[in-house]
């Protein structure tokens, strides 16, 4: 197997991979660099936070916002799948509708490569690109940890919390792949629906921590299964990993099923 489409997808996205990796890495360094001064004034900040309603801290996912774990969770890791989800949507939509809009799909699909393999190679390329971005992000966490040791979290916990975010990100990518396979040529609609899914599920997850009405819907969001506090304080929750992995596989299978059966657009 020559993996022509996988290699091409990586080649097409390497600039984006480094752009996103460096951007998120610099943001991580900025956030970690601010921690020593936050830690110094922890007592003052806690007094301020005492005046805020409980729902405010609930939205942040922790009531201990100024410990190393709470700070990293509330200021960085909470947003990581949301931010990378945007790039995952772009990758997913480009997989099929992008090729159709550029009118390159006919040449691609006329190669002796089954449709399922075209989509699978693109899906795997997205996975590798996301791992590449997360690796740069992890390296910046390591650098930040070395420069500012006040953020006292072990490297294996930093690695676990970084790479575990791959799962909710790939769920979001899976939704975009599915929409790309379902909606020939309708990249705009795919983008709108994927973005609504990303922002909507994020809001349900975040507001669900503070609202009893929204809370029952949290299990239907990928963010529910990426509990960074649990990972940073304990270990990798296997149940959550299993749920997200099954969701990714189901979305991938549904994308293949749809893409196999529909007419290709030009």
């Amino acid at each position, binding site marked *: 197997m020559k993996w*022509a489409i996988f290699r*091409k997808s990586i080649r097409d996205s390497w600039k984006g991979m480094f752009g996103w990796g460096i951007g998120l890495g610099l943001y991580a360094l900025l956030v970690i660099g601010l921690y020593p001064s936050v830690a110094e004034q922890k007592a003052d900040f806690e007094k301020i936070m005492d005046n805020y309603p409980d729902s405010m801290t609930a939205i942040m996912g922790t009531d201990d916002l100024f410990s190393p774990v709470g700070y990293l969770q509330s200021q960085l890791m909470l947003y990581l799948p949301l931010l990378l989800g945007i790039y995952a949507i772009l990758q997913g939509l480009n997989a099929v509708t992008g090729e159709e809009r550029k009118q390159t799909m006919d040449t691609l699909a006329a190669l002796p490569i089954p449709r399922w393999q075209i989509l699978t190679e693109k899906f795997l390329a997205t996975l590798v690109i996301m791992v590449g971005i997360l690796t740069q992000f992890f390296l910046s966490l390591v650098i930040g940890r070395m420069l500012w040791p006040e953020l006292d979290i072990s490297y294996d916990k930093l690695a676990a919390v970084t790479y575990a975010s791959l799962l909710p990100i790939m769920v979001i990518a899976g939704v975009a792949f599915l929409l790309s396979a379902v909606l020939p040529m309708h990249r705009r609609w795919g983008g709108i629906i994927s973005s609504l899914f990303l922002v909507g599920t994020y809001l349900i997850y975040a507001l669900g921590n503070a609202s009893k009405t929204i809370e029952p819907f949290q299990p239907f969001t990928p963010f529910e299964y990426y509990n960074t506090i649990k990972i940073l304080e304990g270990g990798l929750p296997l149940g959550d990993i299993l749920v997200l992995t099954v969701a990714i596989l189901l979305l991938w299978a549904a994308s293949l099923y749809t893409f196999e059966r529909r007419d290709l657009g030009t």
Partner: protein
Amino acid sequence: MAQHSEVVIQTKNLTKKYGGMVALHDLNLEVQRGEVFGYLGPNGAGKTTTIRTLLDLIRPTSGAATILGLDSRRDSVKIHAQVGFLPSEMTLYHNMTGRQYVQFIEQGRRVACMAEAERLAQRLDYDLHRSLEGLSTGNRRKMGLIAALMHRPPLLILDEPTSGLDPLMQQTFNELIREIQAEGRTVFLSSHNLPEVEALCDRVGILRAGKLVTVETIQALANLRFRWFILEFEQPVEVSQFKALSNVTALEANSDNTRLRIQVSGTIDSVIKLAAHYPLHDLSVEHPSLEEAFLEFYGSNNGKGVQA
């Protein structure tokens, strides 16, 4: 001409509908091994729909097709390995050079074909080292032709292959197609470039509004409907007598009625007998160009006039 003995493309009642619109209606077509088959029709007739259905890029609403004896749906991957395809809208990846594009197709096909690609590039006067970004229509077409031909497939399916090529390159393209045919390979090309079809094809299928109007040899198509007879007399003739003949379908006369150009349908016996009443200086026959024959199908007869 190559020996025709084996069906390479066969469609049986192939139909494609988009909602209520019928893009292709009960297409029954056979293309033999070694022939160059022209698929003619105006824009929107269903040429590209046929090609995309044959290649399983779109799925038929009903009917079936076989390519090289393989089912177009079930065996599409095997078919793709043996077909060279040039789409009508040739769009390339802008972030590649020609060589990189050839390497990409090589990887996809799992066949080494750089040497053949370089040979074709030389024939088509195309530089594979240049970026694919900002190429002219003609150069995109050349790159597409190289990609379609470089793995030396037994069947070529070319959708409007010469659109955008300059006349010199069209000549080179014609030579390539003749060489391919001489090797016993088959070419199915869609076009509305009639001189190209006339110069290259053994047979043509004419498509109109999704229906196959006829399949004919080029020669038969040109001879089938009508001929023009040029009669030059030594003195003026009574034009109305000729117009009155039942098999005269059109008549043009010069100002002094000594030269008549008569379009005759069927036998010319009555025309010759009437002309014999006058001193006849010369008689010649003009066969219709394919374009005239083509227009006849789409013009006054609405595609109903030809018996296949």
